[in-house]
């Protein structure tokens, strides 16, 4: 059965999944890696060499090829569909779609947080999934946030980061977009950690899986129409801009996870006597 997995687009968790795509993407990636690596500048060129190290993008020539391919796919297929989608929907509808697909990913986050040793974040994910799936009518609404349980995004790449695994070189994957040597391991994990995977196989489930994946993809792309247009119009090197945003956003996600997992003393716990 074809399965969903997650496409990273512009640093966001969005999108895609199918064994077919994985079957195409992985050989393409491996072939691409053989094509070319960036030539590091001489260490005597201090400024240039420091910039090279900071970018940590030794496969840049290959990454740029995949960026170009993805850009064409987006320009001629995904973006026109997203624009049509925006034309026939309103922002509140798109918000509810976003809430719905976010809720489906919540059990996966619960497991990632547990593996990452983040019990408070894991508890939040559990509460969010229970509340939004019931009171929120299957996740179409997000009452959990209003109750004080906002979403904290995570994935297996961030779990590995919690374990101390470094980010590694930057990778721009065919179809899947920005990633890294550590974060790419997120894909196989996301492949299995969905409620859809746990449910018994059926035709209806397959149809639902494809529909959810397509809707997630188009809805997320629709939200980025203006931002991506503006970055492409104003950046000198959009590839480098997206790379920078991706790296900063990952670091920020990690920081947010740690901030929200701060342990506190429960109200019911005996407080020390005041002297």
């Amino acid at each position: 059965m074809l399965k969903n997995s997650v496409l990273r687009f512009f640093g966001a968790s969005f999108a895609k999944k199918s064994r077919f795509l994985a079957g195409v993407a992985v050989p393409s990636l491996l072939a691409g890696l053989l094509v070319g690596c960036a030539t590091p500048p001489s260490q005597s060129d201090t400024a240039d060499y420091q910039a090279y190290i900071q970018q940590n993008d030794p496969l840049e020539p290959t990454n740029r090829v995949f960026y170009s391919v993805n850009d064409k796919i987006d320009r001629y297929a995904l973006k026109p569909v997203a624009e049509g989608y925006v034309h026939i929907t309103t922002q509140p509808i798109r918000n509810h779609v976003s809430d719905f697909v976010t809720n489906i990913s919540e059990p996966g986050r619960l497991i990632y947080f547990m593996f990452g040793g983040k019990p408070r974040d894991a508890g939040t994910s559990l509460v969010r999934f229970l509340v939004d799936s019931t009171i929120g009518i299957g996740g179409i609404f997000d009452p959990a946030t209003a109750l004080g349980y906002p979403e904290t995004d995570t994935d297996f790449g961030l779990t590995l980061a919690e374990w101390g695994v470094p980010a590694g070189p930057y990778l721009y994957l065919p179809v899947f977009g920005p990633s890294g040597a550590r974060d790419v391991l997120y894909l196989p994990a996301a492949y299995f950690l969905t409620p859809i995977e746990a449910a018994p196989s059926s035709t209806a489930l397959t149809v639902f899986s494809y529909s959810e994946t397509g809707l997630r993809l188009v809805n997320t792309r629709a939200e980025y129409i203006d931002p991506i247009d503006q970055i492409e119009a104003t950046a000198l090197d959009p590839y480098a801009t997206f790379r920078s945003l991706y790296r900063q956003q990952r670091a920020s996600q990690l920081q947010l996870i740690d901030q929200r997992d701060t342990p506190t003393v429960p109200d019911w716990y005996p407080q020390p006597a005041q002297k």
Partner: protein
Amino acid sequence: MIFRRFILGAVAGLPMLAAVSAAQAQVAPDAAKAFIAQSGQQLVTIVNGNAAPAQKADELRQLVDQIVAVDQVGDYVLGRYKNVATPDEHSKFLALFHQLLSYNITYQIKAYQGITFTVNGSSVMGSDTIVDTTITRPGQAAADVGWAVDEVDGAPKIVDVIVAGTSLRITTRNDYASVVTSHGGQVSALLTAMQTLIDRHKAAN
């Protein structure tokens, strides 16, 4: 959901993208909050006004010059390559940078009609004072934007735009550094790329 707010916020802050400065004194949180509230109100008044787009762009450019440490912007974005650039390249870079900032503002002005600006709070983070705001546009999700404020030449100025922990000055710096690096460390290549982008904007308008 969170990332959507991040990226929309990132773009909402782009008119002030170049906001950076060199070493400055810290601004008290309340003073920074008042400064951003006033600046935001001026921004909203201009963007939502009835003036022609060209006039709005001019007014916005003047506002940016007043509230952003624009003179220091180029140097931060140029980063380590400031030491590589010749004096002539450096001065040309600053001129192009100002020009590019103006065109970026003009490009984005249409997208901000109906904008609202709410100041939430302020806090000290490192050497900066960060003022948290929420920016909304009709038909768009709300965006949380943080404004880093420092005292420059005795007055508070915006030195960075931060969205979900992501600094736009760092993003711009990396963008520019990539151009220089991919051309063997030649600052002249950056100047050419900037001029090309400006020419493209001119042709489009």
